[in-house]
């Protein structure tokens, strides 16, 4: 068994290293490309020999926070999507289905309209609070200890529908809120700064560690609840752990740059095509490839309409949507 498994592990490990190399390359490109084009020299200078030249300031204060945030948000979205699909055993599940995005948006719109919040760094806390509150409610309505995948998904959909009604009502009665929220909803990295990075980093770190630790029990749960229990997995503990990981990862990512759900839906599908169903590898690959996709989309968004920008949420969907449809047509997708 081990003898058979080892070469495949080796191939996967090499693949993961290659993915990491691609990620590093994309990160450098993301620092270099934008409204002001940088040479590699200038990037190097700004990174390691900071002297306060205009190019250095652009690298330090704009491009680096943006790239870091893209890395972290991509990681959060990809990991939470992979965990979500495993938890609900539903290939259509994306983290937003638990109501995380609707909760975050409802909190942000309330903050703008009733508490006078106006800057993006204020939105972070509100969004996070809303996401956490709604996922707890969804978990309780979904049956808490006796939750089933279908119930969780339905409870999330119902909560989202009610919250979207509320969000629309507030936006329509308060045009100031609409004006702010329409830019937040698209999902953008453009306003990234080091403060936001520092605010969300701890949540993403804890969430990522938790998600990666869940690989083994999620593998067991893929075989059905009874088999998983027989294999010694703690169902409730795994479920609660997965919910916490999703809320931390997706909540923080949404708080930082608005709801960009499609990455969480798509990347685990792409990854599973060459890692197979082993969740430990799916999680590891998703963690590396999601930031590649997000940063890549962000770079494309900066280039195509230069000097203006296309929001990263728009670019991911415009590129990801056709790829997704192509895959659906080509492959035999796993059925529910």
């Amino acid at each position, binding site marked *: 068994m081990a003898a058979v498994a080892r070469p495949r592990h080796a191939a996967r490990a090499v693949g993961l290293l290659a993915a990491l190399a691609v990620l590093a390359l994309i990160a450098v490109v993301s620092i270099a490309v934008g409204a002001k084009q940088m040479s590699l020299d200038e990037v190097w200078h700004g990174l390691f020999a900071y002297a306060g030249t205009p190019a250095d300031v652009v690298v330090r204060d704009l491009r680096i926070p943006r790239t870091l945030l893209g890395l972290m948000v991509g990681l959060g979205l990809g990991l939470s999507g992979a965990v979500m699909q495993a938890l609900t055993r539903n290939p259509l599940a994306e983290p937003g289905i638990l109501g995380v995005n609707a909760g975050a948006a409802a909190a942000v719109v309330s903050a703008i309209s009733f508490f006078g919040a106006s800057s993006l760094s204020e939105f972070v806390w509100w969004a996070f609070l809303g996401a956490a509150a709604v996922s707890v409610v969804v978990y309780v309505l979904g049956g808490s200890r006796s939750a089933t995948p279908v*119930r969780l998904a339905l409870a999330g*959909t119902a909560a989202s529908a009610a919250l979207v*009604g509320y969000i629309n009502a507030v936006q*329509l009665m308060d045009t100031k809120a609409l004006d702010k929220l329409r830019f937040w909803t698209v999902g953008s990295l453009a306003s990234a700064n080091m403060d936001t990075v520092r605010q969300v980093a701890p949540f993403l770190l804890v969430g990522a560690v938790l998600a990666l630790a869940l690989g083994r029990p999620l593998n067991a749960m893929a075989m059905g609840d009874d088999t998983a229990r027989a294999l010694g997995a703690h169902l409730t503990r795994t479920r609660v752990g997965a919910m916490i990981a999703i809320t931390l990862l997706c909540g923080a990512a949404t708080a930082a740059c608005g709801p960009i759900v499609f990455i969480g839906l798509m990347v685990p599908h792409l990854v599973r095509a060459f890692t197979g169903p082993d969740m430990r590898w799916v999680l590891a690959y998703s963690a590396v490839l999601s930031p590649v996709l997000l940063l890549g989309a962000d770079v494309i968004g900066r280039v195509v309409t230069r000097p203006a920008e296309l929001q990263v949420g728009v670019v991911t969907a415009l590129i990801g949507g056709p790829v997704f449809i192509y895959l659906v047509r080509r492959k035999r997708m796993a059925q529910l």
Partner: protein
Amino acid sequence: MSATATTTVTATDSPRKGRSGARPLHLPGGISLRVERRALAVGVLLTAAALALAVVLIGTGDFPIAPWDVVQTLLGNGTPANDFIVNDLRLPRVLVALLVGAALGMAGGVFQSVSRNPLGSPDLLGFGYGSAVGALVVIILFKGGATEVAVGALAGGLLAGVAVYLLAYKQGIQGYRLVLVGIGASAILIAVIQYLITKAQMIEATRAMVWLTGSLAGRDWAQVWPLLAVCAVLFPLVLGQGRALRMMEMGDDAAHAVGVRVERTRMLLMLAAILLTTAASAAAGPISFVALAAPQLARRLTRSPGGNLLTGALMGSVLLMVSDLASQRAFGADQLPVGVVTGLVGGIYLLWLLVTERRAGRI
């Protein structure tokens, strides 16, 4: 052929007629129909509720009119003032609500049945977003008036519908692939919508938001006639295919074996449902949740399997008019578009359904 099929079904069903509440109705010319008593009662009640709601809704507004006066005015015996308010202002709006609700309810029933997924409503499958992109292009890029917006919505919805159908087609339509393709198409269309809204001036952005929520404000006879024409042609067509749709829920092979031309029926039904959805969106915007909730509610009330197409349509009308009444009574006339309320009502309904079904041990 269909007459023979009917008789066979009724014949085999007759021993347990008392339990299922279904009995045959013999019509002249050797045609017999299977009538389910509970479904019939629900249908009659819903029709009565829809008519009563329509009268109350016509009487509601800045200038309230008593229900009896509304009826008198509708019959042509009203004062000139009432006549103007009822026939020129409020009747067309209520008719739009009635027709849009019915169209969405029926289209929702068809899509849920074809995709075999209770969440397979036209909003989820991307048709609603197609209409929205069409309308927003007109509002934001061309700053067009109400008629142009309606035409844009119609064109966008039809294009998206045909595109999703063709992309999901691969030696026939399969429910699961249709849902997946619909989700991919939705993602693309939502991105376009959001992009258009960020590019808009504030006035157009607000107009776009109101349109996206779905509103009945200021609808007049110009919206009623095209919608009425579409419904008059498509309702009988869809209802005529209801039996085939019910057979297809058993699976394509079983339906084929009992004589249903599966692929042709499905294409016809989907095309009709897409047309109904886009006509409704063109008239009132993509009102959320009616298409999802109405067939589910109808199914639970009639307790009969299948699409419940007619009861679903009636339920859609009732749902939309209740939402409209609630929004007018709670927030004042035309303060909030009706789509906001259908979202709230629908979400709470689904939650209630979840809690009660959990208690009953289903799901």
